[in-house]
């Protein structure tokens, strides 16, 4: 059982705050670190992997400080987001070098096992510079798994992977979580996170915005008010019909035509909209969500 603990951690670069007073505990199982680009996910992973000192607060691994403590890497496997590898080596040489640097008793066998785990056996003797993005990602995974770490930290691991590779990696992470390892991966895609992780930590603009079971986070995200623009054959008639329904919080006729509308219950709204249109003989010409961006979802979470 290995646990990473962040207590009131902040990290700033000159006058830019990257992580702001974050406290969280990452325990065994798979945890998803979710947040939009620039939210501070990579900074958090750097803090958790001992590659960055917190400006304030503490980051520990089973009570041991992570910063300036190279012995923690006996327990940690890190898959950084950056693409750069030792491009002049073959995949096998690269994983083997990692095994040797860990001082494993049989680096050759450990390297072969890790390469097989990420399904790279066929391409292991090719030079890394010839690898696709997905292959590079998998050989990075193999290098971080070669010493069978109890903690695995992955920064945006699904980037550049094709759907089949993605499914395979998800399965691998689930298995490692089920084995009792502490697995944390970052992503900016909710669907990606909820397919693998039960526990989700949401960060927005450097703040710890939400934490919990993926079901609860999903509900928070889908239950937020949704804004739409409707274009219909009779905007005034449609707006008055919609305002009667409790799923609609407000509607405004736009001077340039169309209705600006806020729905408080997205599920119900999506059912009643076509029904009401049919009942009142109005044709729906266009239904456009106006705040579907991830940033707006996260912004809502922060204020929730």
């Amino acid at each position, binding site marked *: 059982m290995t646990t990473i603990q962040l207590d009131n951690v902040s990290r700033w670069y000159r006058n830019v705050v990257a992580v702001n007073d974050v406290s969280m505990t990452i325990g065994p199982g798979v945890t998803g670190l979710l947040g939009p680009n620039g939210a501070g996910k990579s900074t958090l992973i*750097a803090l958790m992997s001992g590659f960055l000192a917190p400006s304030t607060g503490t980051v520990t691994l089973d009570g041991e400080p992570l910063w300036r403590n190279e012995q923690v890497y*006996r327990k940690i*496997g890190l898959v950084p987001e950056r693409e750069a590898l030792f491009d002049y080596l073959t995949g096998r040489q690269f994983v083997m070098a990692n095994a040797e640097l860990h001082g494993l008793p049989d680096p050759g066998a450990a390297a072969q096992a890790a390469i097989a785990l990420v399904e790279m056996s066929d391409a292991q003797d090719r030079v890394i510079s010839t690898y696709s993005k997905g292959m590079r990602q998998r050989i990075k995974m193999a290098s971080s798994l070669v010493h069978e770490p109890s903690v695995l930290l992955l920064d945006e691991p699904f980037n550049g992977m094709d759907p089949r590779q993605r499914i395979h990696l998800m399965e691998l992470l689930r298995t490692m979580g089920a084995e009792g390892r502490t697995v944390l991966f970052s992503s900016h895609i909710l669907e990606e996170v909820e397919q693998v992780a039960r526990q989700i930590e949401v960060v927005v603009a450097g703040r710890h915005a939400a934490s919990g079971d993926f079901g609860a986070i999903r509900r928070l995200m889908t239950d937020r008010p949704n804004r739409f623009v409707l274009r219909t054959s009779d905007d005034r008639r449609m707006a008055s019909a919609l305002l009667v329904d409790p799923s609609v919080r407000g509607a405004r006729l736009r001077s340039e035509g169309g209705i600006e509308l806020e729905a408080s219950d997205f599920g119900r709204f999506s059912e009643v909209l076509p029904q009401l249109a049919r009942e009142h003989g109005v044709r729906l010409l266009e239904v456009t969500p106006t705040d579907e961006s991830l940033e707006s979802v996260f912004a809502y979470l922060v204020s929730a």
Partner: protein
Amino acid sequence: MSGRTSGPISGTIVRLGIRSVFGRRRGVLLFLLPLVLIGLSVLVRVLVGEDPNAARDTLYGLGLVVIVPLVSLLATTGVLAPEIDDGSISYLLAKPISRHTIVISKLVVAATCVLLFAALPMLVAGLVLMVDEPPLAVGFALGSLVGGLAYCALFALLSVLTRHAVVVGLIYLLIWEGLLGGLLDGVRWLSITRWAGAITQEVPDDITLVEGLGPGYAVAATAVVIVLGTWLTGQRLRAFNLTGDE
């Protein structure tokens, strides 16, 4: 070569370092620079004959002042700077090995380059220029090796302090060691090339490269730069920051 880490040197890091230096185009320069030195020495010998003054000026002015620092700069930055620049050094740092082991292993590669591409060519060039005076060649080879090691330690530190280690290193060589070292006498107390010169002139008879600088001071100052540079580079690597694009 063993791949395992034993003591202060990691065979794996040494092996990776060799691939890193010679796997890039810059590595070709390491072969070119000694060829230039030996080629020009042959030319001087043919044109001037066996002349002590011409030999001294060539070995010092071209060898110690130009070739040795450049070989040290290319070798050290080649083994350290690209990995720091692209972040791939994180694969070495995310291991339970001392940061000083990483630095010393990389410096072993750089020092071997200095031996092969600076000190040995200086020996050859010295023998070409003054075949009847082997101590001169030995002295310059020794001075090149000692000075080169000091330069390697200094450039290793530069590599972890700045992402523009090659440019800063070149500016340092041109301004401090080259321009100011030639103009201001006092610079000799803080010049690796002058220290190397002071060590060199102790081996052959009747040769003066640097005046007013004792061999004791030169050896001590060189040792301080080698030890301090190596240690500070390791300390700096212990506090290596790895952050993404955010």
